[in-house]
């Protein structure tokens, strides 16, 4: 009845089953963070693989889209064939109600058809909103449409429960190709030819061993009863239920854990639109390089944003801090709430979730020397961490380790007037260079000074710099120094 369309749609459905279940797994962030930080997963390769979870999610998503196109195309052909090849002989196999039924009616009035169409529309909305350009310019659209995935999964669970696919349950009593004494054979199906014509939607395994004996014996079995068909169990439910339950459990856990209050101890305003926020939360542990996600219901009920920790809680002091740059409407409203309405009782405290370990790999390096290269557009931006850098430098100077940290500050845009950061930061002023850093020369210099050693490169910045650094890290140099590239990722 259906021919090739059945094969393509079933094959693509299997791929879709796998991908729909895998796509949820990289989004179970707490589970991934736990795996990444646990002692059992000590291998650096595994950790770097876990860092690429967002890429994996995107790959699965793209595969879902591609195979959905195939699946939909094949099913549209199937719908047509159901209508055209309506069979009087095996009424139970038909999806159409009569011969020549309008396929569009079939599409919209059956459960699988309707849920399929709705799923395509949801997928269309989700995909068009997930392109790089939209994520960059209007992250909100991406975020709100992507939450439609829940609708998609509900529709998927209903889609496969339609029971259109059937298999024959009484193969013993009515093997395919048997001769029924009481009915007249249809004219265009010769007796011998019955064996070759593929029977629609029957499980082929029990039949595989049979064809040869039938032909050789030249005996056609007599069937004792009419064929009976039963719907396949929707195996999609088996594929999806695991990851879906895991993801729901994780969301519930995140929700519960975010209810513990966070106290804001201070808010400091820095130049160039930067706000420093210091907070305290009980039993909060974090390592350098981790980030937290802030969620403030008073500012926005649904949005939450990641910020790298600039100060981690230690054994002696439980305060931790982040620096935020006021760039979009969420940060602006957050700043207004903190600075202008600070006399209110701060119950709106940001709930947050502690997250992954993007740049945790520094722990496996035995740190001998640190090269700190910071590129800013405005000179006042250096004040964000000027105190910390100066103090660190002075401390190392006192300990007679002046070359432990190598600070280089670059001012990429200058209006021609020589500027200094401030008189009290002489250490930094003497290390201030005008213009963008010349990465190749820097890498050569570092390679020359650290021959045969491994240098970890940690980049936090825009993609262009990241690409250049990645390329330079992977290229070989004549001093035998190895560079390992790490990038900050909020996945």
């Amino acid at each position, binding site marked *: 009845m259906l021919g090739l369309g059945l094969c393509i749609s079933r094959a693509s459905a299997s791929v879709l089953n796998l991908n729909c279940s895998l796509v949820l797994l990289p989004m179970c962030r707490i589970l991934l963070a736990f795996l990444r930080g646990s002692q059992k997963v000590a291998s650096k390769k595994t950790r770097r693989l876990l860092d690429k979870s967002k890429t994996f999610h995107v790959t699965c998503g793209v595969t879902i889209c591609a195979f959905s*196109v195939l699946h*939909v*195309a094949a099913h*549209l*052909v199937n*719908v*047509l064939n159901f209508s055209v090849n309506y069979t009087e002989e095996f009424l139970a196999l038909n999806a159409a109600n009569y011969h020549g039924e309008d*396929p*569009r009616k079939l*599409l919209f009035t059956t459960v699988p058809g309707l849920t399929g*169409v709705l799923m*395509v*529309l949801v997928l*269309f*909305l989700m*995909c*068009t*909103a997930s*392109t*790089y*350009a*939209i994520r960059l*310019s*209007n992250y*909100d*659209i991406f975020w*709100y449409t992507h939450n439609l995935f829940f609708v998609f999964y509900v529709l998927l669970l209903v889609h496969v429960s339609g029971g259109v696919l059937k298999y024959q349950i009484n193969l013993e009593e009515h093997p395919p190709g048997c001769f029924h004494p009481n009915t007249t054979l249809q004219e265009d199906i010769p007796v011998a030819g019955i064996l070759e014509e593929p029977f629609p939607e029957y499980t082929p395994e029990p039949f595989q061993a049979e064809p040869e004996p039938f032909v050789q014996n030249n005996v056609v079995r007599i069937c004792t009863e009419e064929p009976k068909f039963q719907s396949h169990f929707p195996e999609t439910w088996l594929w999806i239920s695991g990851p879906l339950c895991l993801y729901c459990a994780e969301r519930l856990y995140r929700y519960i854990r975010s209810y513990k209050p966070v106290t804001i101890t*201070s808010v*400091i305003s*820095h*130049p160039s639109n930067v706000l420093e926020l*210091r907070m305290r939360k009980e039993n909060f542990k974090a390592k350098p390089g981790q980030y937290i996600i802030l969620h403030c219901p008073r500012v926005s009920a649904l949005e939450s944003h990641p910020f790298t920790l600039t100060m981690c809680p*230690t054994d*002696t*002091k439980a305060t931790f801090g982040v620096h935020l740059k006021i760039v*979009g*409407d969420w940060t602006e409203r957050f700043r207004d709430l903190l600075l202008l309405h600070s006399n209110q009782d701060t119950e709106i405290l940001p709930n947050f979730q502690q997250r992954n370990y993007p740049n945790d790999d520094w722990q496996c390096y035995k740190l001998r020397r640190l090269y700190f290269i910071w590129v800013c557009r405005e000179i*006042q931006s250096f*004040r964000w961490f000027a*105190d*910390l850098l100066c*103090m*660190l430098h002075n*401390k190392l100077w006192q300990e007679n380790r002046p070359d432990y940290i190598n600070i280089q500050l670059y001012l*990429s*845009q*200058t*209006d*021609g*007037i*020589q*500027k200094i950061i*401030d*008189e*009290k930061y002489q250490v930094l002023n003497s290390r201030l260079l*005008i*213009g*963008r*850093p*010349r990465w190749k020369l820097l890498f050569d210099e570092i390679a020359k000074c650290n021959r045969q050693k491994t240098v970890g490169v940690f980049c936090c910045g825009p993609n262009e710099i990241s690409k250049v650094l990645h390329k330079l890290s992977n290229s070989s140099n004549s001093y035998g120094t190895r560079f390992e590239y790490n990038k900050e990722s909020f996945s």
Partner: protein
Amino acid sequence: MGRIEWAMWANEQALASGLILVTGGVVAVAAQFKGWPFAAYAIAAGVFVCLLEYPRGKRKKGSTMERCGQKYLTAVVKVFGPITRNYYVRAILHAALAVPAGFLLSTILGTACLGIASAIYLLAAIRGEEWNPIEQKPQERPQVGGGTIKQPPAMPPPRPPADTRKKPPAEVAGQENPIPVTIEAE
């Protein structure tokens, strides 16, 4: 949610719908379905929509990513002036183009998707958005110093010292950090 620019999303949707229409049309024409003239129409409409929507409009705030090679089509689309600039026109145009493709099974999804794109364009038009072409930036002067210096000094030497130069009064010098910064001993 205040500053969402819907037109950009509608643009992506319309481009995708154009491709869906073309795919559905090609399938129907190749298989010679009954009613394949609709499919041929769908292919033509899909190609037209793709060409119209390929050049991305300029965002109100911030820089816009151009699509690869879009400047040629931008020149063509710009010529039509207010017809292509106004999003009401685009919304109605897409709605009208979508309807005939709804009569054939294989292009019905293209109709639905283009219909959604048309609705989002209507929303963008109601919020006063407009299509503005992305202009080419003027040729930058040749880089001095290997591209490391973005703006060479405007005045020739000898340059007077900092305090006698006319400087816009910037922030108060010497910001005091209200909370002293300490280094945690590891």
